């Protein structure tokens, strides 16, 4: 896929985005973030704010985040830890009087922040999310053991062993009941047409980047 000539500075996507949208953060969200065009529909009723299972751990509720987007608080929103607290429970979505797809917007904002390099470092859910995707797309199916090991060892070997040790009862239990297969580490479940899966995902990424780059 040939790069379009309008934007060459792909090295720093954040600088590119800043140059393009200047102070119009709402427009940036509308064009770049999944389901972004819905943000302006929020009527600030606050129903979503009381719906999150990890509510006390959200510095900014979805309602506040939508308000901050409209107020142009770009840095505060994109560097926020809040969106990463979303458990995809869809509690807010079924209650919102304006029917905003809040879950997707939270995931979309988090993903966008991650791609711009602004997401908080060492955010555990970000790490897990990336590993999950990597794990599922490498073979087309999720390998639960590799996934679990990856999460434990992300902070290095010693921390990983400590964590694994803390969780040994869980792992041993799963092993004994036949629900965790150690041989997954050496291959395990996968799609036969891994090549096709990889090719279609690569193509999808290219198409999406092309669309997001097109003048809005």
């Amino acid at each position, binding site marked *: 896929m040939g790069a379009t000539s309008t934007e060459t500075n792909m090295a720093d996507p954040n600088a590119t985005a800043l140059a393009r949208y200047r102070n119009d953060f709402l427009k940036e969200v509308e064009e770049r973030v*999944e389901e972004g065009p819905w943000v302006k529909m929020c009527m600030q009723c606050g129903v979503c704010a009381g719906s999150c*299972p*990890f509510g006390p*751990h959200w510095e900014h509720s979805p309602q506040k985040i939508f308000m901050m987007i409209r107020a142009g608080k770009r840095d505060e929103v994109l560097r926020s830890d809040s969106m990463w*607290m979303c*458990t*995809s*429970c*869809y509690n807010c*979505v*079924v209650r919102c009087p304006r029917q905003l797809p809040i*879950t997707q917007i939270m*995931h*979309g904002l*988090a*993903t966008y922040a991650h791609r711009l390099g602004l*997401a908080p470092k060492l955010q*555990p*859910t*970000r*790490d*897990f*999310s990336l590993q*999950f*995707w*990597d794990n*599922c*797309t490498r073979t*087309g*199916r*999720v390998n*639960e053991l590799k996934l*679990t090991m990856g*999460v434990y060892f992300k902070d290095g070997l010693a921390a990983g062993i400590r964590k694994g040790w*803390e*969780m040994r*009862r*869980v792992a041993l239990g*799963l092993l004994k*009941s*036949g*629900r*965790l*297969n150690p041989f*997954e580490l050496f291959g395990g*479940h996968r*799609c*036969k*047409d891994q090549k*096709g*899966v990889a*090719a*279609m*995902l*690569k*193509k*999808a*990424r290219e*198409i*999406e980047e092309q669309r997001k780059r097109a003048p809005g």
Partner: protein
Amino acid sequence: MARKEYAFYPGCSSQLKASASNYLTSVNAMCKTLDVKLTPIPDWNCCGASIGYAGAGELQRHVLNARNFALAEAHLPGQDVVATCAACWLNARESKEKLHGSAQLLADTNEALKEAGLRYEGKADVRHMVEVLIEDFGYDELKKPVVKPLEGVKFAGYVGCQTNRPFGIAGESFENPLYLDKLVETVGGEALTKYDQKVTCCGGALAFSEPEKSQKQIRDIVEAAYDQGADMIVTPCPLCQANVEVYQSEINQRQGTKFAMPVTYYSQLMTVAYGGTAREAGLDGHLIQPVKLQELAAKK
């Protein structure tokens, strides 16, 4: 020919030796009794789950789900796709709705699918196994094969999030869905209808990345089951099952509780009520033994 046939999407957690393999075992036994033929979609792939978002783009997620639909349409024409996992069902259904709402997205998806030699036609529907039971059979039909009613066993019906929101089961409310309790009663068990953590989130995939925050949720879910005098929890979701069962020992250790509340699947209840063995019901796959069900299964 079987009474009903479906294109089956088992999902990653139901694979052999994976965390919900006993769910699959019991679904197979239940379907055998009901004369349902489940043919796995050849070479199905992961749905991307809700948690894969940071690595995935929007289109990539839809393409993954469209691939499964395309394979089902090509190999099992005319059959509905049936998922047993809440997340698989939700993600497939969400993708389908998006693709049907946007000609551009549909065209882009098919352009990407071409790389795998496939095409999404949008013919097959995706349904949860619970929908199949309730809509294609109905409680009366599901009751007929019961030979061993689960008399005297008290169940806290834990529906959780993703089988309930945002789509849910037709005709049910989001705040108090009744189908799980009705299924329990259909097979002769006692449904604890006052159980108040029915639709609480277990933390989902964040049980891995935010263990303490999730364990607080799980503690509420288990505690409320004890408050109602439950013998066990029953759920339709593999992630709920795993989280609520597996982390009880951690919670005990960290917080000094003495939790040992079994967590089972609706399909295990049905298998036992239909006269299946403990093995057929996947009752050998638990960390906390569902003793009352095991005893019933062992009884002649």
